[in-house]
């Protein structure tokens, strides 16, 4: 077991390193960051001075090693735009995005579980068809458009909820629904088919033969086993959720990590971009690891 965990961790570190190299290389190719950071009236001398300050004149390999050694200590450089350390500003924004992701996950499960169970229970009937149609529609919806439509309906026309910003729970609702609805579609369908598969198993037939009500069969016996692939799916969807948060945060101007990185990329604020990508990759990798471990708890047949 520990061997497995160690192996996965090593894999994770390798992934993170590869990503860091990618990001570093990419940003190096983007032209001269110094001129992008200076005001309009800057002279050539100012540009040269900033280049030297940023260490842009050193050979690439040296810059990368420098970057890595600082990164390990948590130092991703100074964001000139935000006037504070790049890592610290990314970390400041993590709670907001996690809140959004958590709320979206809750919305998604709240929508998906009833839909999936309904579909499995009334398999083949029009209820099943309708539920699955709703699910696939949710899956096909462009997130940015759904966000705008929700703004149009709930914020502009009905004036119930704020159209943007952060800070309080009300500002969380629309972004969470947008993000969660998309994921709900896939999860609902997965749960349904997984339930169907389990329901055809022998132990379920035994339970039915014993005279248990269908609902009990569903809840106590089928669901737990059907949950397995759903848990895997949810775990993998976390990466999707965090990435989808980027678009949703942009549409709603929600002050999380996603909005931060979009602004940083377009402003060529490289320290922040690098810090973000590494944090994001770490989060995804850790979540995947956690899901794998959870898997072993849920299904005693699997052992590493």
């Amino acid at each position, binding site marked *: 077991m520990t061997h497995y965990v160690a192996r996965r961790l090593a894999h994770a570190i390798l992934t993170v390193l590869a990503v860091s190299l990618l990001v570093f290389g990419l940003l190096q190719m983007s032209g001269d960051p110094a001129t*992008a950071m200076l005001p*309009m*009236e800057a002279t050539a001398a100012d*540009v040269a001075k900033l280049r030297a300050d940023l260490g842009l004149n050193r050979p690439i390999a040296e810059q990368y090693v420098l970057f890595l050694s600082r990164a390990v200590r948590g130092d991703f450089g100074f964001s000139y735009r935000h006037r504070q350390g790049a890592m610290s500003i990314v970390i400041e924004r993590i709670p907001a995005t996690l809140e959004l992701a958590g709320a979206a996950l809750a919305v998604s499960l709240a929508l998906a579980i009833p839909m999936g169970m309904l579909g499995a229970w009334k398999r083949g009937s029009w209820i099943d068809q309708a539920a699955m149609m709703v699910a696939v529609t949710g899956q096909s919806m462009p997130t940015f458009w759904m966000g705008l439509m929700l703004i149009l309906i709930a914020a502009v026309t009905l004036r119930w909820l704020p*159209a943007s910003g952060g800070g309080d729970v009300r500002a969380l609702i629309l972004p969470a629904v947008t993000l969660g609805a998309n994921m709900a579609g896939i999860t609902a369908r997965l749960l349904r088919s997984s339930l169907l598969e389990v329901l055809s198993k022998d132990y379920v037939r035994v339970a039915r033969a014993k005279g248990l009500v269908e609902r009990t069969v569903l809840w106590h016996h089928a669901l737990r086993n059907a949950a397995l692939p759903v848990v895997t799916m949810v775990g993998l969807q976390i990466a999707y959720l965090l990435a989808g948060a980027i678009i949703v945060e942009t549409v709603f101007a929600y002050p999380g990590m996603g909005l931060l990185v979009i602004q940083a990329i*377009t402003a*060529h604020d490289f320290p922040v971009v690098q810090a973000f990508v590494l944090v994001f990759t770490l989060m995804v990798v850790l979540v995947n690891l956690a899901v794998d471990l959870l898997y072993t708890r849920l299904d005693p047949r699997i052992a590493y």
Partner: protein
Amino acid sequence: MSCRVRRSWLVVVFPLLVVALVGSPFSPAPAAVPRTDPNARLVVAQASDVTTLDPNADTVVGNHNVIDNMFDSLLDRSRDGKFVPSLALSWRYLDSTNLKFFLRANVKFHDGNPFTAADVKFTLDRILGDKQLASKMAGNMATIKQVVANDDRTVTITTSVPDPELLQRLTEVPIVSKAAVEKMGLEAFARNPVGTGPFRFVDWRKDQYVTMERFDGYWRGTTGVKTLVWRPIPEPSTQVSELQTGGIDIAYQNITVDQIPQIQRSGNRVIGIPSARLLYGVFNMAKKPFDDKRVRQAVTYAIDVNSIIRNLLNGHAYRINEPVDSQTFGYDPTVTPYPYDPARAKQLLAEAGYPNGFQTGCEARVAFKDVIQVVAQQLAQVGVKCNIVVDETTVHLRKVTDKTMEPFFLWTWANSEYDADSVLYHMMRTGQLYSMTSLPALDALVDRGHVSVDAAERLRLYHQAMQVVKDEAPVVSLYQTESLYGLRPGVNWQPRPDERADFMRATKEPAK
């Protein structure tokens, strides 16, 4: 009552009644209902949050809109463009490179410390020399060689070369409290600024609000409202809906022309004033075919600016005939604009060797993506086919400084110094960081204007320069943009022509 008593009652009451009725026009009017609420809370929304509250850190407009309400500079510019005293009572040029300021007495910082010349020296020194601050204002102050605090009330600034723009630049330098910065350190001061301005800092919650309150000891007087709150709301449509619901009182510049009808329909006001920002179509003269004057003139003839202003912008822009607007020093009123003449454009193109037109890349930043599409359509009518590229602002700026910009692009220049030198020298002189133009005749004129301190001579030089620009057409002077502000009813505030955010005199009527 008996008859006798009733009559005596009338005898007493009746005269009083007469006096009351007749006397009322002569009695003092009843106390007027207060039209403004001195304890009002004014919420202003702009597009971006501040990135720092240190006024000397950079020149980012989004920061200064907020910060400038908490600080003063040495001098200011009045609404009709003259320099007026602020923290400095008067100033005098000792010679062409030495400028002496006499400072105002009895001015206090928000923390109670007195304002002295040492604070002025400290401010300028930190802009020029503080490595940790790495001020982006340093470029503007680059000609300053030395600052000496002669005594508590006098400061002398020495420049390395004569700099006619120094006074204007100094209007943009807020003076900080030396004691506060030294006590708190740079990072803390950037989050807890201390200045002499009309409002003093209360709180900053990132991406949510910056709150400030009336400073009771302000030397200029008292503010109209008690609390001023700045909220960052990036989306124009959200700003408009917050304006409609009362979540904000003023939408500061982040609304579009197309939203004006909607705002007005819901009972709010829109104020539009000519902005300092002018829009140009710029040719990269290093790229064919724009090295040929006839091609540049042809493109200028092919653009129907009046149609753009009238139809696309609903009249919310001002035509300019030359690279500067009429309020700027150096403006030549005799210059006439190119008329819209597509036939002449085609003729010129044929003369230049492009009878069937040509293809070119055309670029604009996101804010002008509609305008570039309209321009492209107009150019297509004369055979010039545009491949449109729309860029984010930073990429847009970088392309110009790297000289990788498309051959024709839309460019704005904020002419907040009201001096033609800014545009002609920094934007059109060969080799300048933001210049895509190369005209030796223009360079000669502009170089002399850049260093002269003789106003008459400079005017003459700039008038000549405007004629050169008209003839050579290195840029198409399109229009002066309009700054738009949305206000709720009951809010009284007038924006400044130079677009500095000044809320000292803003007032708000009491809620009904």
